[in-house]
């Protein structure tokens, strides 16, 4: 079709291959989606040239439709269960099964090369099918998944001849203590990234050493706690090119020969920029790492429960170039002060609770955070578990760091007010959203009224994800957010007094969002039913954990857990009995 006057260039004069080549440079999903809307011919070209697809909710579209839409699919990211499933709020068997996807892609002969999954149920059967169906398969990344055993890993190792990446992060894996690692054939030399830190069981150390020795491209290696110190040392000698290292067990006698060998080995690993692991750690051995600290950009000590604050700070003092730091709260406020004075390039900080059950014992307070904000102006991503927080501190942080993209605060007592003024933390969070115009993700905690939501709706114009717990006073709170946050995609709420009025008034918004989770709020079954009826493009699911069946309940009863999401394919067919699809 000819558009415009002769003075304008008609892009359709270009052959398809040229357009395709141009589209190759467009990587972002959003942009590619836009491209496909321009005209029919662009839609077609984009469709066949699209290789990477990201599905934030695996139930928003079915595998068959996805394959029909993008037959050239090579790289797929899928997310399954709602975020709160990470915290035991979603019963097992809720859903998020990988198998149907693998089955459909295998059947359609999709040339799958990469698969990244989060919160999905991955069976050994699906891993086996995967390993046998896609000859060019290169990369498997599983984050917070479950349902598989080391047998499934053995299938991947055995059959994926060109595997480059096997990255297992915080999965629940049943360890059959088999020799999955030994299943990598001698001919497999393509590994660039291997992360099995989350596995609990023994592995064949000799096989591991041989594997590493024949993998010249290996850049990232993260071991589990079953790999002892002397193996670590031998691995380092074989892989001095490593960029990312996760130690296994880091316990050894500092006067031993093995320890000296390790010190020598690690010094020759001049490329290491990222360090993690230390699941078992002997504090006296940490000094061996000092020589590589000055080059580190990412340091993850969040599992190193054996390190005290002074050891942590001694280590961190060497890490001047650090950009990302994950640490336990035993570092303390003073320790964070050391971080602030040393790590001026810091962009991301995560402080985890070393004792997640004892609300009285978190060792960091608002003071540590303020110190970090003063020393690290580039800070843009925060996850902070703390004992307490004040409005004054948050206001100061907001002034010092205006670049926050992610701001997640978790006060261990979730309804704790400002301990100095006894006020809610509305003003503090208000300052954050006012100051950080690029804020995309926010998690609230502490005593909070509707006012904080007023601020969020007013100022957090770029906000995409909001997590709320034990906050607010009335429906107004939720409505401020639904009406004001134009870019909101995910909203998850637990234990807040938001009810039917808010849920229903926000109806029009939900199709513009990926999902909404509300648990232990004031929402009734009747309202959920009404919502489901009026919005056919939404799946409204109720998780019913009592024994009651449909007929016993009336509409005025409050719903314990509701999860709704937009979808193109209607009700899912794999919902268990306790999930009601309205």
């Amino acid at each position, binding site marked *: 079709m000819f558009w415009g006057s002769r003075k304008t260039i008609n892009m359709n004069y270009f052959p398809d291959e040229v357009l395709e080549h141009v589209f190759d440079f467009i990587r972002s999903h959003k942009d590619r989606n836009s491209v496909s809307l321009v005209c029919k011919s662009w839609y077609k070209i984009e469709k066949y040239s699209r290789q990477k697809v990201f599905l934030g909710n695996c139930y928003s579209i079915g595998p068959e439709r996805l394959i029909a839409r993008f037959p050239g699919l090579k790289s797929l990211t899928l997310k399954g269960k709602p975020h*709160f499933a*990470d*915290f*035991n*709020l979603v*019963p*097992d068997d809720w859903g998020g099964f990988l198998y149907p996807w693998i089955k459909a892609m295998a059947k359609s002969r999709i040339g799958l090369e990469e698969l990244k999954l989060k919160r999905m149920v991955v069976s050994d059967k699906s891993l086996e099918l995967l390993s046998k169906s896609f000859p060019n398969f290169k990369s498997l990344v599983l984050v*917070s998944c479950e349902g598989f055993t080391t047998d499934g890993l053995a299938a991947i190792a055995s059959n994926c001849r060109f595997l480059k990446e096997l990255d297992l992060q915080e999965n*629940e894996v049943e360890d059959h203590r088999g020799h999955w690692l030994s299943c990598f054939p001698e001919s497999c030399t393509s590994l660039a990234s291997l992360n099995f830190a*989350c596995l609990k069981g023994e592995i064949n150390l000799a096989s591991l050493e041989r594997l590493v020795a024949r993998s010249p491209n290996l850049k990232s290696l993260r071991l589990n706690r079953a790999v002892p110190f002397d193996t670590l040392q031998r691995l380092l000698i074989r892989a001095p090119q490593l960029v990312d290292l996760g130690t296994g067990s880091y316990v050894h006698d500092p006067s031993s020969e093995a320890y000296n060998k390790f010190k020598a080995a690690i010094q020759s690993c001049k490329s290491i920029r990222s360090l993690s692991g230390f*699941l*078992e750690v*002997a504090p006296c051995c940490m000094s061996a790492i000092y020589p590589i600290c000055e080059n580190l950009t990412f340091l993850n000590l*969040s*599992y*190193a*429960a*054996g390190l005290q604050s002074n050891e942590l700070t001694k280590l961190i003092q060497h890490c001047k170039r650090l950009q990302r730091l994950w640490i336990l709260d035993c570092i303390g406020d003073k320790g964070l002060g050391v971080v602030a004075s040393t790590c001026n390039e810091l962009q991301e900080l995560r402080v*985890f*609770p*070393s*004792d*997640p*059950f*004892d*609300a*009285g014992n978190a060792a960091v307070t608002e003071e540590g955070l303020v110190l970090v904000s003063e020393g690290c102006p580039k800070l843009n991503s925060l996850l902070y*578990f703390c004992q307490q927080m004040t409005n004054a501190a948050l206001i100061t942080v907001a002034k010092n760091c205006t670049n926050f993209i992610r701001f997640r605060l*978790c006060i*261990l*007592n*979730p*309804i*704790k*007010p400002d*301990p100095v003024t*006894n006020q*809610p933390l509305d003003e503090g969070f208000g300052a954050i959203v006012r100051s950080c115009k690029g804020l995309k993700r926010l*998690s609230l905690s502490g*005593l909070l*009224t509707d006012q904080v939501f007023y601020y969020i709706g007013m100022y957090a114009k770029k906000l995409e994800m909001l997590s709320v*717990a*034990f906050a607010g*006073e009335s429906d107004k709170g939720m409505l401020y957010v639904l009406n004001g946050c134009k870019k909101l995609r995910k909203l998850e709420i637990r*234990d807040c*007094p938001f009810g039917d009025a808010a849920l229903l008034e926000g109806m029009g918004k939900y199709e513009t969002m990926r999902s909404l989770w509300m648990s*232990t709020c*004031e929402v009734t079954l009747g309202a959920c039913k009404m919502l489901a009826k009026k919005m056919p493009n939404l799946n409204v699911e109720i998780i019913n*954990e*009592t*024994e*009651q069946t449909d007929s016993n309940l009336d509409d005025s*009863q*409050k*719903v*314990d*857990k509701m999860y709704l999401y937009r979808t193109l394919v209607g009700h899912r067919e794999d919902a*268990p*009995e*306790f999930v009601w699809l309205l």
Partner: protein
Amino acid sequence: MEVGLKMMSMKGGGDHFGGCENEKMGFEETELRLGLPGGGGEGGEVVRKRGFSETVDLKLNLSSKQDPSGIDPNDEKVTGLNKEKNLLLSATDPAKPPAKAYVVGWPPVRSFRKNILTTATQKSSSVESGIEKVAFVKVSMDGAPYLRKVDLRLYTSYHQLSDALAKMFSSFTIGNCGSQGLKDFMNESKLMDLLNGSDYVPTYEDKDGDWMLVGDVPWEMFVESCKRLRIMKGTEAIGLAPKAVEKCKKRS
């Protein structure tokens, strides 16, 4: 605990499913439901528990009929807030340090991380008594459509566990444990009586992969060795009885 309190309201006449209860709940009841870990619970412990449960018993929020206590009447801002939050303010009294409490899913830390941390602390610290802080196991019940997970470390006796399971799967009756919490395994006929009834019986898979009747070993030993729980009909569990009696006899 969310689950505990929810089930309580079901027992009391069940016209709510989940969420608010209109009945008044004494603090005492809700204390138990907090599932405070660790042994004991008498004396000084109780005082601390009460202080904290006033503050963090977040399920109380739903019954605004509770009388707030310990509120500073001069604080005007306070009166404008939800009653639930008022209850909270008394907790800032440093004389009542918060005791441990457990609310489902809070703090928002992946159980993977929780489990790793506690095992790590155990191994590298010589001061720790070596007791694992978490022991999440899956619980299934024959006939129930869903699985649950429980943290065995929240309970200090079979009795508490039995209560908690009863609340989780409330429409089924679980056979009670004996007064000391241990089943009378030495008395085979008593055991057979229990198993022949229509009650459900909790069983567990131990570290060796064997399925055992719950209650045959001292509590601590049970927590260490239990990998998963299954609540089955008494009649089906009969097959386990001889094994249980065997193991018990061997031990004594």
